[in-house]
């Protein structure tokens, strides 16, 4: 059961950013189909990808999700009701006017896209009205970004490392970010349901 405090925060967030690496598809498969077609907020997802081919994730998840799944264009508004996937070979950032930005700067944590880059820029835009979820993965990407989000009063959710295909990423996020919730995928799914369901 999610605490009252947590539920209250979940229904107040205005965006949800998600990071995953090794084992990402399996985990996202249990989470993203929860997002309703007319979701109240946008979800922005970074999955570590090999640099030299186009990402297949939008295609894979479009077939399984009710919400619209897409890859953003530069300066496109971060519109609610969508699940946005970072493309390969760019960092994805959120700009202060709530549009998407991109960079080809060096990889961060050996990754481009990097979860930290998205999380830190999103923390600047949304502050306490931001939620993040760190899922399975085999490096430390996302930990720094999650701690920035936490420091700004945002909500940090981390997959229980014991339930994750790769523990390192959740472990690093737990060590650095003091998450409000450490949970299995079904519990995280419940959080997403609360955060994204359309206003009554």
């Amino acid at each position, binding site marked *: 059961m999610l605490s009252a405090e947590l539920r209250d925060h979940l229904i107040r967030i205005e965006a949800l950013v998600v990071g995953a690496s090794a084992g990402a598809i399996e985990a996202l498969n249990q989470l993203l189909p929860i997002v309703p077609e007319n979701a109240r907020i946008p979800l922005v997802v970074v999955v570590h990808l090999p640099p*030299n081919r186009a990402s297949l994730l939008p295609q894979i998840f479009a077939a399984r999700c009710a919400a619209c799944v897409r890859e*953003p*264009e*530069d*300066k*496109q508004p971060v519109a609610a009701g969508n699940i946005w996937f970072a*493309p390969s*070979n*760019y*960092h994805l*950032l*959120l*700009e*202060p006017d709530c549009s998407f*930005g*991109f*960079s*080809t*700067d*060096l990889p961060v944590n050996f990754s481009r896209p990097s979860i930290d*880059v998205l999380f*830190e*820029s999103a923390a*600047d835009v949304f502050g306490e009205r931001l939620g993040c979820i760190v899922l399975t993965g085999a490096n430390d990407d996302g930990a720094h970004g999650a701690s920035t989000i936490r420091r700004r009063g945002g909500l940090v959710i981390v997959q229980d490392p014991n339930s994750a295909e790769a523990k390192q990423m959740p472990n690093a996020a737990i060590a650095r970010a003091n998450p409000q919730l450490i949970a299995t995928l079904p519990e995280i799914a419940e959080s997403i349901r609360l955060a994204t369901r359309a206003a009554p």
Partner: protein
Amino acid sequence: MPEDIEIRLLLDAIYLRYHYDFRSYSAASIKRRLNAAKVQMNAATLSALQERVLREPRVFSQLLQFLTVGVSDMFRDPSFFRVLREQIVPELRTYPSIRVWIAGCSTGEELYSFAIVLREESLLERTTLYATDINPEALHKAEQGLYPLDRLQAFTENHQLSGSKCSLSEHYTAAYGSAVFDRSLRKNVVFSDHSLATDSVFAEVQLVSCRNVLIYFDRSLQDRALGLMKDSLCRRGFLGLGSKESLMFSEHASAFRDFVASERWFQRC
């Protein structure tokens, strides 16, 4: 946030002192770059960095490296170069002399990719390439055409995927851990300091390639830059952008039509 104020003040200071205009760059990535510079240049705050930048031009050139250099590969997005080779080169062939502008050429990866395609298609001899950037150190590197050998494997794979019938190694010599690209590739290249933020049109060209440069600009600066490209291009001239860049949000959209939209090739109306 005090930090956001510091960023504004620093960018104002840079503009007033050195006439480099970063004030309309995308806020999120300039913030990352400035914070990276702050850490690596051992400044406690951006205000402290500003004090040094204002008084020491050498510190500014150091900072400029953080503010401008993106990282590119040769033949990045090979399918973009396949369209160049298969659909645009035949049109370029109809011109007696060809002028190409590589806007924001940085350290030259994009420039050499174009020069190599043009050479392989026997057009290089009658082409002038304008390679422009605001960073003199990057331009100097572009002019040298020297890349670490460990990057060549990726370049070679991309080159093959771009539809070349030759080997990339025909265009460079390996020596001392580096690949030196042939001098003849840059015989007709004009390297020049040019800012999309503050300078104006300098030539009429049949092709502009400006990839992964506009992503660093806010929408007003993107419009300024696209305006320069629009005014430089002859009728039916070609514009190539990066794979996430488009004319979707630009006031100049109506001056172009899609050529191969999926690969971000546009044609001047």
